[in-house]
């Protein structure tokens, strides 16, 4: 299991290969990759700068990953989140989960990205034709995360 916060890009194939290297218990890997879009709220975006809270970011991502491992039988999990200046098409985040069976890998991956969006201290500054502006929180992200608060398989027992 690993959490990385970095400015550099990542190689998807390399990261996924490393995640299961030498582990023959893994039957499936699910990954989510978040990218910078070229439009936001109907306005073109030329670049985006991601700010974060060093220290708390790593701590929260570690907690989120530990929570996923508590809820699902994961063989491994990986979160890579970039910060700094990014352009449309650039990768922002990778969440990958490996499990013996696909259900746990799919659910845990979905949970991790939904939870990360509302818990990890990152903020996006978008550059558009009218200048730079800080992105506001999406109610949709809160709704997506709230769904997992209700569907904790262990809490339901």
């Amino acid at each position, binding site marked *: 299991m690993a959490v990385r916060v970095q400015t550099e890009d990542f190689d998807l194939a390399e990261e996924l290969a490393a995640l299961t290297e030498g582990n023959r218990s893994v039957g499936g890997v699910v990954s989510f990759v978040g990218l910078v879009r070229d439009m936001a709220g109907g306005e073109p975006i030329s670049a985006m700068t991601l700010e974060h809270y060093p220290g708390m970011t790593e701590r929260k991502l570690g907690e989120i990953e530990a929570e996923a491992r508590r809820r699902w039988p994961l063989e491994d999990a990986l979160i890579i989140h970039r910060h700094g200046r990014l352009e449309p098409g650039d990768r922002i985040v990778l969440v990958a989960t490996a499990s013996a069976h696909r259900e746990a890998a799919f659910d845990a991956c979905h949970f991790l990205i939904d939870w990360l969006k509302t818990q990890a201290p990152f903020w996006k500054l978008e550059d558009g034709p009218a200048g730079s502006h*800080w992105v506001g929180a999406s109610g949709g992200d809160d709704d997506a995360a709230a769904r997992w608060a209700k569907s904790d398989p262990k809490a339901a027992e």
Partner: protein
Amino acid sequence: MKLLYFAWLKTKIGIAEEEVAVPEDVRTVTDLIAWLKSRGPGFADALANEAVVKVAVNQEFARRDQTVGNGDEVALFPPVTGG
């Protein structure tokens, strides 16, 4: 107390972090925000809409009634927008 500001709170306040000695009557997050607002127009503007200001004490999300003291690291920021 170590204070950290992020995103548009940092822009409006004009600094990313500072070391301050808070008055004795500042005991909770609510007290701290009220005191910060009195420190100047940048603070008052940044903290005008308290509903959109999140607080972390020692890198954990904190409620408004949580106690804070001069040994703490307190961060103020808008709702997070990563991912």
